[in-house]
């Protein structure tokens, strides 16, 4: 389960697998009739009764035109927004029961975000930017630093530890952001147009990285309208007017 901590997982696998015998396979994401309405005038129904199930280690692409509700879905999945109705189970936890602080904690622990605009802090080094991911988990600083370096090795940037993000290329920046996203060992990697600001060479390197991560067992959900990105995913879901439909 832990792509970044192979020693630990090899020791504990499969004895302490998070999906014990009682519940055969726990889906990472389970959306049950989720709707999100924005109370504007007239009201906008961004999500209409969405059902979605994402199993562990799946690589899912959500495609669709802009304004179709992709970003709203991502916000709901990332616990940044609450659905108006319906149920959202993340790792089997009903997120409707969580208060604001608990949602923040779950967000930090279970979800890794990758943004189109990277969202790296310009005044912090690459290594510090990655370590930020565990800041609000209250982990030990030395361990965090070690894991940040390991994560950067995974994305092939161990030679950029002390750099400031402005000195990196776009592709490198997104790889730093991905290292940050996977550092907390999240259940779900949520990527919002991860290649939207990248040229084709850098896009290819990021997509290769996603393939690697997926091979290591990370669950990935990518929102994109780039056909090339979607094509790399194992499963594609199309979103139109707030409704989802599987793409063959």
């Amino acid at each position, binding site marked *: 389960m832990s792509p970044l901590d192979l020693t630990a997982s090899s020791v504990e696998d499969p004895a302490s697998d998070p999906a014990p015998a009682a519940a055969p396979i726990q889906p990472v994401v389970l959306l049950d009739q989720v709707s999100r309405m924005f109370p504007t005038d007239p009201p906008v129904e961004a999500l209409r009764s969405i059902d979605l199930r994402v199993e562990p280690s799946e690589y899912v692409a959500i495609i669709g035109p802009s304004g179709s509700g992709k970003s709203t879905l991502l916000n709901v999945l990332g616990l*940044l927004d609450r659905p108006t109705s319906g149920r959202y189970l993340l790792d089997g936890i009903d997120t409707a029961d969580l208060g604001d602080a*608990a949602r923040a904690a779950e967000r930090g*622990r279970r979800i890794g975000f990758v943004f189109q605009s990277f969202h790296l802090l310009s005044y912090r080094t690459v290594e510090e930017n990655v370590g*930020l991911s565990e800041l609000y988990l209250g982990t030990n600083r030395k*361990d965090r630093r070690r894991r940040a370096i390991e994560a950067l090795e995974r994305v092939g940037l161990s030679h950029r530890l002390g750099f400031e993000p402005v000195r990196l290329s776009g592709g490198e920046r997104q790889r730093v952001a991905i290292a940050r996203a996977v550092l907390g060992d999240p259940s779900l990697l949520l990527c919002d147009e991860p290649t939207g600001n990248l040229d084709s060479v850098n896009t290819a390197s990021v997509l290769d990285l996603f393939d690697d991560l997926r091979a290591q067992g990370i669950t990935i959900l990518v929102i994109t309208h780039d056909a090339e990105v979607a094509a790399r995913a194992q499963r594609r879901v199309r979103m139109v007017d707030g409704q989802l439909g599987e793409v063959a």
Partner: protein
Amino acid sequence: MVALRRARHPVSSRPRLRLPDLVDETLAGVFARPARAALTTLGTVLGIASLVATLGISRTAGSQIVGRFDELAATQVTVASRTTGSGSSERAAAFLPWDVESRIDRLNGVVAAGAVAEVANPGTVRTVPLRDPETVTERLVPVYAASFGLLDAVRGQISVGRWYDEGHVTRRDRVAVIGADVATQFGIDRLDAQPGVFIGDELFTVIGIIDAAPRDAGLVSSIIVPYTSAQDRLEVTRPERVVIETDIGAAQLIAEQAPVALAPNGAEGLKVTAPRDPTTTKNAVEDDVNQLFLLLGLISLVVGAIGIANVTLVTVMERTGEIGLRRALGASRRHIAVQFLAESTAMGLVGGIIGATVGIVTIVGVAGSRQWTPVLDLWLPLAAPLAGALVGLIAGLYPSIRAARMEPVDALRAGT
């Protein structure tokens, strides 16, 4: 750590932020824009510096004034009769005794005491009963009747001869001590011939010349005679005032005790003149100096606080994306608020430390230029940085609340 990460699935209650991490984030946030942080801090520096300098300089000046008082005035207590009524019906409310030495010297803290009264109509003073038309031989000189303790009580100095003692007083000797000015006027410079002076028609033998009396400079131009012979021949009845020299610091105590010792039955009829309590004097001086400058210091502090609040607010707006990111990484609203509060407090604290330093240097500089001893309350350099931090904390409240209230979705969308 590994075990904790493996057991990541139980529902966690709250996100956590460790203190060392908060310190790291705060320092990184402040030093991300060092020039801006420095300029922001400047207002607090000025405010704290002027407060510290004001308090320190007034304290320094205050102790300086007290230091001058100490030498002479702070050890003098004078007791006189109160008068009741007015005009022709005016009369003393209580009478002073002549034997003040035996009454007052027993009090702890008294160095010397003496009673004195001016002779009302001494007549002219001359040295010999001779009428010489060519020189002025008769003069009007103030004449005082005094107990033998007066010399020490006024810190008088005898240049020639001696002062009269208790024996002269008891024997009612007709002796006189003349002031140096009087001696010059009458051409008396040696006493081995036992020169005499006529006060009115009464002859007194000059036994000494007093050439200094710091507490009562008028004595140097006067003639002083024992009160007993003055009662006999110069129609003196009661002392007008009692002069007491005290130990340093005892003046307040003696001022309370002396009236009772002098007039056990009518102490309230006596008027005591004592130096102001040194603390009162000092406080009064400090108050005068302080009021205005404290106000100025407070105003600059408020301006500094507004500066910090303003810059922190701008910073919050600039870092909207960062706030969104931190929320996405698991920060609660409280963490966001705490981080910006910590940044503004840190700027205030640094401003307070620099301001306290500048203020103390100013105090030492001013004291040095006036050759004063710089006096500094110990709490001041400690309290000043705390005050700065408090200013920063208060200034950061509103921006922090703004930052914490941002919705992560909006913050992520707005910022890059």
